[in-house]
């Protein structure tokens, strides 16, 4: 699936650029995007280093375990494959809370920490586990209480009521997230059934 989409994006791009007689667009955007990927990773180094340091301190103090216990009923339902009181739960909660508050800078390090812990339960496989797919279903649909960036754009454009879209945004996110979680379960159910045949 990902192989096909990746190839499709490139092939479609090259064909259209060839028809338009602009092969240099391909070269330029490939190099530019490659640099952007490296730049993002480098920007993340400081954030990751800092937050993983803080997280380890919290873990040693037993705080992450406490968080994991608090949300046990919720996570038991969403992530049945994660053992009870596993530290991954604490990281998942921190990631979702940071997303909810619109703290993108902290959400990514917490989320990547959660992925490390989920991968430890995945026996070093290069295939996503059930829990990972559910976790990313939550993350790609991104529940946010205050979409701060977009409110900023609206303020700059002179909106009379820049925050009036908060309610509609929450409604749309909620519908999207519900569908993501439901379809995740359905996909899992049907793929299991195919395998066991």
């Amino acid at each position, binding site marked *: 699936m990902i192989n096909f989409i990746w190839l499709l994006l490139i092939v479609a791009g090259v064909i259209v*650029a060839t028809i338009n007689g602009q092969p240099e667009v391909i070269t330029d955007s490939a190099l530019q995007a490659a640099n952007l990927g490296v730049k993002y990773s480098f920007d993340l180094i400081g954030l*990751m280093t*800092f937050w993983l*340091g803080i997280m*380890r*301190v919290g873990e040693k103090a037993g705080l992450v375990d406490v968080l994991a216990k608090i949300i046990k009923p919720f996570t038991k339902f969403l992530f049945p494959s994660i053992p009870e009181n596993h530290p991954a739960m604490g990281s998942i909660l921190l990631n979702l809370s940071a997303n909810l508050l619109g703290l993108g800078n902290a959400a990514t390090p917490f989320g990547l920490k959660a992925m490390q812990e989920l991968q430890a339960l995945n026996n070093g496989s290069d295939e996503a586990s059930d829990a990972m*797919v559910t976790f990313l279903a939550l993350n790609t*649909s991104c529940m946010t209480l205050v979409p701060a960036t977009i409110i900023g754009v609206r303020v700059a454009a002179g909106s009379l009521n820049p925050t009036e879209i908060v309610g*509609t945004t929450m409604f749309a996110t909620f519908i999207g997230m519900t569908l993501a979680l439901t379809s995740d379960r359905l996909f899992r159910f049907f793929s299991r059934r195919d395998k066991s045949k």
Partner: protein
Amino acid sequence: MIEFLIGYVSKWAIPFLIFFIPVFAYIRGVNVYEVFIEGAEEGFKIAIKLIPYLVAMLVAIGIFRNSGAMAMSVEAIRPITEFLGIPGEVLPLAIMRPLSGGGALGITTELINTYGPDSFIGRLASTMQGSTDTTFFVLTVYFGSVGIRRYRHALWVGLLADVTTFLASIYIVTRIFA
């Protein structure tokens, strides 16, 4: 009132964590400085591990977008969405949203400035931009950080959610503001 409260929590959450976690840990007898360093060491490795995944994905999306292939696919599906009564102005945003966060924000800003923030299109674009995250980017970064190459149904789930969120945005903005 609620908006004020949320804004307040957002502003103080990080300073609170940076203060509370080390102080609490110190009281519980943790060697805070040493433990911090120990955890922080992992940060570099994880960030660097992302590079091949990000470069692969961003290059493909960059070529697709800048070559004009993306604009062509928007035109290709326009008859279908017009038939369904979906406003054509936001179609490029719907296609861009899962591929590139920065690109989508650019389109949203342009729509808001062209049609006005309090117009139907302005409100719809704002809702669409805020209600979902960049699916391809999130999957690339999160899976890349732990070396996952086979995504199983994660991409389908993300894209299905994007389409649903898009349709839900149109429904609710029409319902509330029109």
